[in-house]
């Protein structure tokens, strides 16, 4: 049987194991990823299986992790870096944006930079400051990087392998609140192209767009809307940079109404970019302005307030009602 039911975290672990087995240039590096298997256990068992020169703990320094991964990539390796939590990526910001992202361009397009940076991101885990951020917009703004984010175990298994196979740097945003729920993973067959979006639920009245953990929220909202007689289409972006606009625009031309939802703060966010592009390219198909549902433009609040900060099915449905009122 090629279908296995497993949590998203285990699916990434299985994808990493497959990539390590398929190509001996693949390395895993990061903080606590060896014996411990990572604070989320995503690399569990991989050091024991592949050894300490393929899967290794680095000193506790994020810039050092990414900067040395760049040197390893120059040597022909395909490093996969783990950043322990979203809010801990900033010490590596310079190496990611000024070095990793620009290295191919600096080499006139001739030097591959096959570095993957895994980032457990997002809220809903009740953690302390710096552990629940959605900071994808900083990186989506930077030329030279690719960004993807799986929403389910099947995509996670395949997308991590496709990211590792990419000769361009890929930031892999893992929805950490979705690490544990299980889903079916088809271990056989061709994966969907890495940078394509997916219609997660078909509908005719309103299009909802989101990625990562937000997709689960959108599907819940769609289910409730259906009970109230509204047919909702849900698009899982999967790729955050580049965004698969053809798939989104096909849906928008059908429904004429769009809500873009994200955990991230709204100001200058990925959702804002998607909304603007839809407006530019499908203006005459729209029956209403594209609405955004986002985290507030405050810092991520203390955990006891996170369920108010983060958009839930009710806030999404509120936007669905508004977009239908035009």
């Amino acid at each position, binding site marked *: 049987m090629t279908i296995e039911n497993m949590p998203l975290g285990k699916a990434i672990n299985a994808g990493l194991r497959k990539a390590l087995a398929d190509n001996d240039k693949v*390395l895993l590096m990061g903080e606590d990823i060896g014996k411990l298997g990572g604070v989320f256990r995503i690399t569990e068992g991989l050091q024991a299986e592949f050894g300490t*020169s393929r899967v290794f703990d*680095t*000193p506790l*320094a994020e*810039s*050092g992790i*990414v*900067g*040395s*991964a*760049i*040197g*390893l*990539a*120059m*040597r*022909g*390796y395909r*490093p996969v870096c783990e950043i322990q939590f979203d809010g801990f990526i900033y*010490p590596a910001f*310079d*190496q990611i944006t*000024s*070095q990793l992202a*620009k290295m*191919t*361009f*600096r*080499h*006139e*397009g*001739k*030097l*591959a930079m096959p570095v993957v940076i895994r980032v457990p991101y997002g809220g809903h885990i009740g953690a302390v400051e710096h552990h629940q951020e959605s900071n994808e917009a900083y990186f989506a703004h930077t*030329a*030279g990087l*690719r960004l993807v984010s799986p929403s389910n175990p099947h995509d996670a298994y395949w997308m991590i392998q496709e990211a590792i196979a*990419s*000769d*361009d740097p890929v930031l892999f945003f893992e929805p950490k609140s979705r690490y544990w729920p299980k889903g079916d993973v088809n271990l056989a067959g061709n994966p969907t192209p890495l*940078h394509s979006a997916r219609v997660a639920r078909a509908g005719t009245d309103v299009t909802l767009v989101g990625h990562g953990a937000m997709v689960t929220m959108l599907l819940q909202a769609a289910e409730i809307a259906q009970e109230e007689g509204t047919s909702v289409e849900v698009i899982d972006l999967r790729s955050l940079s*580049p965004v698969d*606009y053809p798939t989104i625009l096909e849906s928008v031309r059908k429904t004429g109404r769009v809500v873009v939802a994200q955990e991230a703060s709204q100001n200058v966010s990925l959702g804002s970019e998607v909304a603007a592009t839809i407006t530019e390219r499908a203006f005459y198909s729209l029956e209403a302005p594209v609405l955004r549902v986002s985290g507030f433009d405050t810092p991520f609040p203390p955990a006891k307030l996170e369920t108010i900060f983060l958009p839930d099915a009710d806030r999404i449905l509120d936007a669905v009602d508004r977009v239908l009122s035009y």
Partner: protein
Amino acid sequence: MVQLLGPDGTFAPSAAAEEFLPYFERLTEADYRKFFKDMVTVRRFDTESTNLQRQGQLGLWVPSHGQEGAQVGSAYGARSQDHVFPAYREHAIAMIRGVDLLNLIKLMKGITHGGFDFRENNNFHLYTLVIGSQALHATGYAMGIKFDGDYATGNPETDQAVIVYFGDGATSQGDVSEALVFSASQQTPQVFFVQNNHWAISVPVSVQARVPIYRRGEGFGVPGTQVDGNDVFASYAVTAKLMDDARAGKGPALIEAMTYRIQAHTTSDDATRYRSESDLEEWIAKDPISRLEAFLRDKGTDSSFFAEVHESAADFAADIRNRTLTVTNPDIYETFDKVYTHPHPLMEEQKAWLQAYEASFGDEGGAA
């Protein structure tokens, strides 16, 4: 401090130089002359490049004047199979590794952000402009050498190591400290070569370091050696030995080469605003080229040799000047093809948009 040649060119090894003497003793008369010729050539090139900037040919020039001893000596201390990660002032090392120096001109003229590929230029990597970033790239590369087992086999002809260059200012950067930590942690085959030229633009080294920089490595587990960077023999001997040690698996090392930035930081800088004439004169008296010239003349080198070197350096500079004047601007459309190695829809859309926009002007000619 390791010193073999005093400022007046007298051969008088310091006590610290003893363990490095066997490396000096390998050098032949022809090597002395090669070192001299390279130092003179790159200084002439450097002057020509400053002139080209003043004449509007370049946006910027970064002078290497005064640092030729540290650069030429250390460049020959590495072997052809080694990898070299420069900062952005290492013109002599670029030349010795076989890079066409017109590529450095193109970088400063606004033609390219890189200009050459280490895979086709004897493992000499691109200049890095963010201070200290390359220390981590070098460390990662050295980790790769270790994982590949391409060191410590006992064969110095094939074993590999990495040398990374940065200045005294860079030692304050977090990336340099992280590189020292990672390098010590992994025991990489690697030498950190600090050219202490005493100035980070206008800020003196005393602001960066209250203890000598060569001692900075010790706390990281990377032993340090201080060398007279204006003594090309000492720079060579120390680098050659420590690179041999790194190649042989003895772990990373740090070299602090004491030298001086005789010119301003760049052609955009005015050093008279922050440093004294007397400081400058003191260091001009320790010049690496006049020092080696005194040594060579004392050994009976014929005057005709010096005349020939200066003539060939002038020819080298004239060739750079002539070719600078023929450099053409890059193609804007190609920039869209160089950002990623795989096709990317944004790049394709924006390239097509620009082409259509330009074409919309018809025969009137485009905006670009």
